[in-house]
């Protein structure tokens, strides 16, 4: 890509390159940076794991506090009695001789169907 008509542009970019070079930082061998910089990369997953474990521990603790892990048998015993039968059973005062009477015995006489 050596187009002679681009000489002006190349010249301008060459000046820009010279200026950038004057402010470029000095070369430091990346191999020397390795011990200082790599642990920072490894701490991230460790931090993530420790946070996850701490969250799990907190959830477990809160669960125990709220009774989530209590046995089911205790729960039935602790329920309040909402309905207790009081007095005698219903309809005990009505004389009812089921085997000897038809099903419409209790109906008034005008409603009773007389079959021939």
């Amino acid at each position, binding site marked *: *890509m050596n187009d002679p008509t*681009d000489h002006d*542009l*190349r010249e*301008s*970019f060459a*000046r*820009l*390159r010279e*200026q*950038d*070079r004057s*402010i*470029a*930082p000095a*070369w430091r*061998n*990346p*191999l020397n*940076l*390795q011990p200082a*910089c*790599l642990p920072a*990369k490894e701490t991230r997953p460790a931090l993530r794991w420790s946070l996850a474990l701490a969250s799990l521990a907190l959830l477990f603790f809160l669960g125990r506090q709220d009774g989530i892990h209590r046995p089911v048998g205790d729960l039935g015993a602790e329920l309040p009695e909402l309905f207790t039968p009081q007095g005698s059973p219903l309809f005990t005062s009505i004389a009812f001789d089921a085997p000897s009477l038809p099903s419409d015995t209790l109906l008034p006489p005008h409603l009773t169907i007389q079959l021939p």
Partner: protein
Amino acid sequence: MEHETAQQLEALHTDSFGWAMHCCGGNPSRAEDVLQNAYLKVVAGRADFSGSSSFKTWWFGVIRLTALEEHRRLRHRESLLSRLLAQVTGHPQSSPPCPARQMEAGERIQELKQALACLPARQAEVLHLVFYQDLTVNEAAAVMKISPGSARQHYERGKARLRTLLQSPAPAH
């Protein structure tokens, strides 16, 4: 990282800084950070030269990718408050070049920088890689991860636009 790789990186160090500068919009401190992170990628084995392209092409691709990652990270961190503060005070968020440096820089360099900033990113990239880094258009395409045909198109259009911008009078401040 092998010593041979370190030697190759050292030979490309100043050019790498120039490319990082371009990828960071001319911000020297950000360019330095990006270059440092790119070096660390190589040291940690997260960027490995496979030999399918030239070393320079591969290395410039790593720098470009690192600059993009850094740009995304910075954009994510920018809070609404800092943007508002920058607007109120009228200072741009990137650190401006010091006045002494501005005075030292030639007018034509400033014009070139301003003209490059006006170009679409792809056009500016390919022009930098070809004229500043002396890569071929095909090598620039490899760095930019685009097809050679597309790179050629960006190159031709960018060159024509850059010439027009450099010939037109600079806008009054």
